[in-house]
């Protein structure tokens, strides 16, 4: 693992369970799920569909409260929606009435201390957003509206919006799931670049094993419902990883190993 990573644990989930109450029936979505993530680490969670991956994301961010167990971020227990966490979903949820630049700047209008400073230092913040857009190759489209962008561009803007306020935690829920294979692989590179520059802690929820291995330091495999972590795999491939890396035998081995686990889980 790269030496920059601080060993302090940043996110912990301790024997978390969640029961969905829907009318008469109650479903156990997640049971006894424990994991811990270090500061600045990029982890991926994979698993069969319907295993509660997205539920996990909502639990970590405090959007839903777990029925049992506890979640901490930076040592503090999570009780309500955690503040200042960046999120990106499969559907890019950009606001159609705002230009790309204004969309990216949305979190700055909400998160303190930027919210207070934004009006006075608009130029500085705008430059910062433009810089970020340049990193992902979108600076020429800053004035365009989301519906004038391609799916891949929208997703780049979406990722920019998720990290503009420099959150300590970034949650990615299949952010590249709706893109074509070429665009998706291109964005893996963009994502890795952003992470290597900024070293935020990131949790990537995905069903694409190659994506997980490409981006993550560690990959967790979830069981089918009720979801829990059944396997954990360190990805000991040096960064920056490139698309050529994905054709190396070691990369393939890890992907195969994970795939076998998922198949096992499916048929258990």
């Amino acid at each position, binding site marked *: 693992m790269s030496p920059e990573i601080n060993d302090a644990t940043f996110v912990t989930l301790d024997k978390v369970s969640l029961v969905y109450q829907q009318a008469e029936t109650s479903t156990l979505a997640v049971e006894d799920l424990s994991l811990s993530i270090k500061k600045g680490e990029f982890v991926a969670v994979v698993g069969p569909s319907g295993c509660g991956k997205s539920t996990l994301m*909502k639990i970590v961010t405090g959007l839903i409260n777990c029925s049992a167990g506890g979640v901490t971020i930076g040592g503090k227990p999570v009780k309500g929606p955690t*503040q*200042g*966490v960046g*999120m990106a979903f499969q*559907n890019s*949820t950009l*606001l159609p009435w705002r230009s790309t630049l204004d969309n990216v700047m949305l979190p700055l*209008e909400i998160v303190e201390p930027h919210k207070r400073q934004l009006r006075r230092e608009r130029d500085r913040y705008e430059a910062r957003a433009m810089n970020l857009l340049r990193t992902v190759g979108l600076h020429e489209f800053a004035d365009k509206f989301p519906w004038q962008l391609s799916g891949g561009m929208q997703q780049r803007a979406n990722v920019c919006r998720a990290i503009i306020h420099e959150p300590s935690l970034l949650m990615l829920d299949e952010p590249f799931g709706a893109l074509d294979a070429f665009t998706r692989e291109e964005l893996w590179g963009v994502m890795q670049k952003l992470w290597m520059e900024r070293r935020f802690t990131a949790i990537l929820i995905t069903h694409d094993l190659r994506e997980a291995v490409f981006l993550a330091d560690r990959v967790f495999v979830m069981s089918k419902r009720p979801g829990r972590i059944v396997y954990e795999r360190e990805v000991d491939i040096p960064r920056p990883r490139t698309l050529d890396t994905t054709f190396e035998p070691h990369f393939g081995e890890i992907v195969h190993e994970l795939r076998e686990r998922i198949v096992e889980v499916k048929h258990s």
Partner: protein
Amino acid sequence: MISEKMILRIMPWAVTVGIFVVWEVACLVTGVAEFVLPAPTAVWAATVKFAPQILHHSLQTLFTTTAGFVLAVVGGMLLGVFIGASKLVYTGLYPVLVGFNSIPKVALVPVLVIWFGIGTVPAIVTAFVISFFPIVVNVATGLATIEPELRDVLRCLGATRTEILFKIGIPRAMPYLFASLKIAITLAFVGSVIAETVASNEGIGYLMLSASSSYNVPLVFSGLVVVGIMGVLMYAVAAAFERRMTGWAFRGSDLMT
């Protein structure tokens, strides 16, 4: 060679003129009496003859309609925001609103006369109550259909309910609001003319009622046409406003005017 765009532009005029031509020809061929169905030429003659009176009464109607409509926009937006933003208010108020909307507004006019007397106020109030409902429903719908993911993104940034409302809810409800304005303005004309017909000494509704009681049927039809024209004009104003304010919701289509 006439381009397709040209044809599209001419169509509304062509159809309107066509209807009048058919109407005129039908009257000529059947020889129907003028006090049953006057021909467009007779309606036009009446319009010219009574032009000052028509102008006076139509300005009155335009005033009551616009006043009622503006009140409906303001009230409808406020109530729509309340209903759309709070599940509690929605559950409590929605059935009452539906019930209220089911009441034929003409039945309200006598009550309004008892409260406000005959004249301008009942017309304004009727225009208001009739055009209020679609605005409320549309604004509330716009607010209530925010994508859950977007809401999650903002909540995880630490946004308050008010911030979510102002940053996302209200801008997002704007296309719904403007779509409802086009319906509401035409309804407002229905409201004011109904009230003028029943309880006023002024306005197109009153003009038509007094004309019909003296069997001046061409003047009645003239009033109808004037109301129709005012409705189309106000609709066009609302549509132009809509395009200006929420162009992003149309994404470059040409037909949505």
